């Protein structure tokens, strides 16, 4: 059965099993491999996308649950002002090492800063604790979020 959803502001229709996780729909059916597979169990955050404004684990989101929803992936994150600032901060601070987790980190950070543009240090660690970085780039992730937060608040003021 064909299922329609919006990905990065574009309407998309896919005709695959309704229980196929959004992660694999993005990677296999929509040719958007920026969203990564890490654990398949919602434990590492590598597959994080933003669904109707909320960061979700796409490996745990059946396509049926994404039907009719508005999805933002790493490929389209800079379309939002917050996403653009997050990506800019990530680039300036050269956050990635291997880079594999970073799409998920950026999506989680974008969702967090969209909801809470000025998170405290504790709110940052709580908000980002679901995203594993095996290279442990956490110190730069913290710095990048602080920089993005400052840029967003500055832009809003």
């Amino acid at each position, binding site marked *: 059965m064909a299922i329609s959803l919006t990905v990065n502001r574009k309407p998309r229709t896919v005709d*695959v*099993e309704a229980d*196929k*996780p959004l992660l*694999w729909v993005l990677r*296999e059916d929509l*040719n*958007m*491999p*920026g*969203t*990564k*597979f*890490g*654990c*398949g*169990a919602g*434990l*590492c955050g*590598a597959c994080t996308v933003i669904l109707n404004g909320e960061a979700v684990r796409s490996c745990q989101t059946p396509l049926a649950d994404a039907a009719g929803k508005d999805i933002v*992936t*790493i*490929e389209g*994150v*800079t379309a939002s002002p917050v996403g653009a600032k997050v*990506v800019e901060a*990530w*680039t300036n601070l*050269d*956050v*990635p*090492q*291997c*880079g*594999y*987790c*970073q*799409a998920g980190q*950026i999506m989680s950070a974008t969702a967090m800063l969209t909801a809470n543009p000025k998170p405290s240090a504790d709110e*940052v*660690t*709580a908000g*980002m*604790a679901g*995203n*594993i*970085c*095996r*290279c*442990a*780039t*956490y*110190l*730069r*992730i*913290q710095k990048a979020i602080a920089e993005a937060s400052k840029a967003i608040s500055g832009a809003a003021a």
Partner: protein
Amino acid sequence: MNAVSVSRRSFLAASLAGGAALTFEAKLAFAAAPGAAAPAMLGVFVSIAPDNTVTILAKNPEIGQGVKTMLPMLIAEELDVAWSQVKIQQADDNADKYGPQFAGGSMTTPLNWLPARQAGAGARAMLVAAAAQQWGVPVASLTTADGKVMHAASGRSVTYAALAPVAAKMPAPDLEKVALKDPKSFKIIGKSRPGVDTPAIVRGEPLFGIDAHPAGMLYAAMVKCPVISGTLKSFDDAAVRKEKGVLAVVPITDGEIPAGKHNAVAIVGDSWWRVHKAREKLAVQWDTAGFDGYSTEGYAAQAKALLGAAPAKDLFKAGNADAALAKAAKVVSADYAYPFLAHATLEPQNCTALWHSDGKLEFWAPTQDPATARGDIAKVLGIDPASMTIHMTRIGGGFGRRLMSDFMIQTACIAKAVPGRPVKLLYDRTDDLRNDYFRPGGWHRMTAGVDASGALVALKDHFITFGENGKPMRAAGMLASEFPGPALADVHYGMSLLKTNLTTGWLRAPTSNAVAFVFQGFLDEVAEAAGTDLPSLMIKTLGAPRSFPSSDPDEPAFNTGRARGVVEAVCKFAGWTGKRSTTPGKGRGFGFYFSHRGYFAEVVDLTVADGQITIDKVWVAGDIGSQVINPMGAEHQMQGAVIDGIAQAMVWQPTEQKAGAITTENFGDFPLIRINQTPGEVAITWVVTDNPPTGLGEPTLPPVIPAIANAIKDATGKRLRSLPLTLA
């Protein structure tokens, strides 16, 4: 039931032999196009396009250690171009052309510091020679900068691009004789450069092995024998073949995958999600006889028994340790242990391969060691190594796991069964955690004697590790020359071996990540018994500057002067007083280690409250020679390695084995460190010495582990001698 040997062929006829014609010109979407039309090659690494864009090939695998940026920096420096002109392209595997191309042992810097600069200087020499010829002036009258050659006397200048076609035909200079820059005039080396792939990473562009997508690609998932070294007895794939999207079922029983059998049945189809789901329909029987007795508990019990007996083999013996201990003013003895660990790269093991109709094999592989993989695949499949092309993708974490070739051999076996169709094998997380080349566990019974002056005078270690016939398995050994042995008159290091069915391998800072914990943790106990602190005991034991050769001829000597330099530097940096903590729950610990040619000393401050350990700050002093090539990359490696060490010390849980099988499921029972467990600060200072620069992927990691154990002792009075460190 299918007999294994028959079924391999039967599926071929059934599914794909008559499949759609496909283009073999399968190219990755992310294969970078070379700069502009008709670039001129100057040597094997440098090409210059008409718009003066300089494309530099990065020859080594990028696993996040930054070599795709660092190696071209070395070439660009001596080529004398502006970094903004440089485009970087990943080279394919071709060691005959490019030299060694592995990512392991923190060896990229020491192996390439000179040759990469010579390659850049050689290309520059060809450009200068072309300008000299064109203008009819002596080479010595010309200078270069930012991709231009200048003649000061006449005020003329010309771009490299204008010279490149002529320069490319100039005789190649003798690279051993080509002049290199005075480090004082470096413009690129020593200046921070962000990772060359960072912009593509933050855009989510396909870069990694898992993102490879040659046209017409199929997907494969595997059902692995649950017991490593077990073999495939029989299987029934009738139900699997009825599943949507499944095109083929391929048993993998070929040969011996390096150092252990990894039998499996692969399911191939049009979607990884579909073939992975189809695994539950496979009926399969394995032969695990002889392997199901191996277990974590069993190893521990055997090790305990062995520790009390005499070592089966001597590793290092000097003087008479027992006699010296009998005379010592104080004797300290303690047992240390550490568990098996998986690598848990965040990108699960995967590989894409295409078996071309002419029998040639093409790979898109996240491999740390393509040359070894080439040889292993050739051996297992009985094919010519030269018939393979290996494209190296960016790698979502290596940590030593991808030095092994198993996942490439498995992919080659699958590709052979579906000729003409590229196929990507992808492990799921449980496959990945269970089918690893594990960091082997180990046990040490340490005994030391100190004399009345507080000097360490005798040392014994009975080391229990894994291996056979007197030989430790891969990454299961320790150096006979392990410090402080060579500095003492009376020493006995001995070893006894246990057997395992598991495959073992190199985990970031292999052997060092375990031995540092044991030796520096134990020496902290010795220091306490001697009425001093560990840095003071180290300085006393290191003595005058001298070199102890390594017992491994491939490893560098240990220089006590360089060791002392970082010990003193970190003490100064952290304000180490040697006084014990007087604040309950607050502790400070020290650790030193020399590995991968780097000397590192570290101090940890931590807090213990309600049984929870929080790392507050880590100070690092490092000596990697005369030059830090990319400071922002270096800092990143060191901070990452420190946090990785914290994870090994207190977050990661042992890889458990029961009845032969690894039982780890996912990141629930193999937790990785998270942002909320990260120290507030990892501060770094350098000790610059007049030695050739060495690598940073690994040597920062080992010292932090004993430093944490020693700080916990300081905070709580409790000496923890087994990893992971837990306050029960």
